[in-house]
């Protein structure tokens, strides 16, 4: 004999809540996603592909990939080093360090761009020196990279710190007693343990790096075919009445988002990783 489960709601309430949640998801999230693709194809496939093959669009894609290819590995290296320092050792100011790593989360992207103008703009701290030595940072690739790095700074570290904290250091200590060296321990013991968490952090970091708009917009200079990243190129096209082209380029970014979500939930599925955006 079955008796009603007292810890759940009655069937109509359950259905109502599921329908409500479905409606929220559809209205809040699915609708914008659909809109990107529908607007992109409004003028047909031909316009869609022509806008993607456009020289400025291709250079924007290249720039976005280049910026991510440099900033993501550097932030990954930082994330691993920071997590190693914070979780394997106890030292004064450790809690402060963890809070400081979180700092960029609280900074508006616009401010993340502004600080670099104050540092490297012609009237910034290093402006005159850069001018004299003919090094371009702001309004060139390096500026875009450092602005991206600022914004995506915490992602890998934030992912690894709780993971490595929970795993403890026993295995590493055991490896030391067996005579293993530092790199060996990291590669043979730590890395296999954290590889999924690491991938997860890199994934989030990359998604944010390729999609960053506010910070990059402040330091880009908007030179067509040179310093427009893909999100900025979308804005440019949007401002040129080329709505279908703007949305066509936006689909690339939306696809990136979908791939990110797919890989992310695959990792979660295989590793029992708790879901997080932070």
């Amino acid at each position, binding site marked *: 004999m079955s008796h009603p489960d007292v810890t759940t709601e009655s069937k109509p309430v359950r259905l109502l809540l599921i329908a409500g949640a*479905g409606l929220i998801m559809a209205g*809040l999230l699915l609708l*914008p996603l659909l809109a990107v693709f529908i607007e992109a194809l409004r003028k047909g496939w031909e316009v869609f592909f022509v806008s993607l093959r456009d020289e400025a669009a291709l250079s924007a894609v290249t720039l976005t990939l280049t910026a991510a290819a440099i900033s993501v590995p550097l932030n990954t290296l930082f994330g691993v080093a920071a997590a190693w320092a914070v979780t394997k050792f106890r030292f004064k100011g450790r809690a402060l360090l963890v809070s400081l790593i979180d700092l960029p989360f609280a900074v508006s*992207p616009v401010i993340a761009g502004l600080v670099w103008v*104050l*540092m490297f703009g012609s009237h*910034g701290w290093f402006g005159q020196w850069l001018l004299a030595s003919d090094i371009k940072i702001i309004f060139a690739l390096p500026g875009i990279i450092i602005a991206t790095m600022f914004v995506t700074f915490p992602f890998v570290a934030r992912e690894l710190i709780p993971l490595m904290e929970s795993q403890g250091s026993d295995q590493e200590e055991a490896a030391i007693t067996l005579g293993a060296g530092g790199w060996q321990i990291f590669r043979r013991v730590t890395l296999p343990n954290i590889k999924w968490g690491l991938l997860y952090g890199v994934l989030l970091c990359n998604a944010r790096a390729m*999609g960053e708009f506010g910070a990059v917009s402040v330091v880009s200079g908007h030179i067509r075919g040179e310093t427009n990243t893909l999100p900025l190129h979308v804005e440019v096209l949007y401002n040129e009445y080329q709505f279908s082209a703007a949305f066509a380029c936006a689909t690339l*970014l939306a696809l990136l*988002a979908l791939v990110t979500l797919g890989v992310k939930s695959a990792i979660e599925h295989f590793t029992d990783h708790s879901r997080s955006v932070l």
Partner: protein
Amino acid sequence: MHQRRVIPGFGLSLGFTLIYLSVLILIPLAALFLKAAGLGWQEWWNLLVSARVLAAAKLTFGASAAAAALSSVLGTIVTWVLVRYRFPGRRLMDAMIDLPFALPTAVAGITLTTIYAPNGWVGAYLAQFGIKAAYSPLGVFIALTFVGFPFVVRTLQPVLEDFTKDTEEAAAMLGAGRWVTVRRVVLPMMLPALITGFTLAFARAIGEYGSVIFISGNLPMKTEILPLLIVSQLEQFNVPAAAVIASAMLIVSFMLLFSINLLQRWLDWRHR
């Protein structure tokens, strides 16, 4: 204490971390504060209480709080359904939660504008009722709800998953109806996580730029947000003013971040 240092790499990893952190984050932020400190207290004050800054601050904080509140309500429903019920499409729904996070803000901005503009899919419908969605504070609110939503769900989800049903069973055995149990037992237990989620969504919304500038219409005094005001001051060659507004925003954001960390610690402590 000393014994833990048998693991190698302390100097290397900490040194690299500190240098990287300083060069990339701390020194640039110091540059910002120093630039802002170039103005005296009086100028700071005058700038921050000027009508336009106050209006932008009111909109930024007001719309962010309202959006975080709506995200909390919607997020609670969605999380509940995701954690407690099994139905077809649940995995997909779960994966989709992070879309606002993964979708670049500029794309979100032009898309939401297209949907909510007076001639857009939803906007045209709302316009029939005389509701103006895009180019009004409502548009800002919609965009901020979109960006804040995943933060609420992803904060609530692990907490709700860890709940054992013991308490709920006990309440039911004591004769409480399901609704009473949810209201008196479950919701209070979820509250700390909900507050954390709200604060995260709120903090994220305050700094949001890309998705808002397209949909807001950027009317000074009406639909202008603080980050846009910073950009606008910068474009008017008024760098010190931009630095002052940015510094003030940063201070508020840091305080929020700090309270999130405190909340989180309290939450962990309660959890144990």
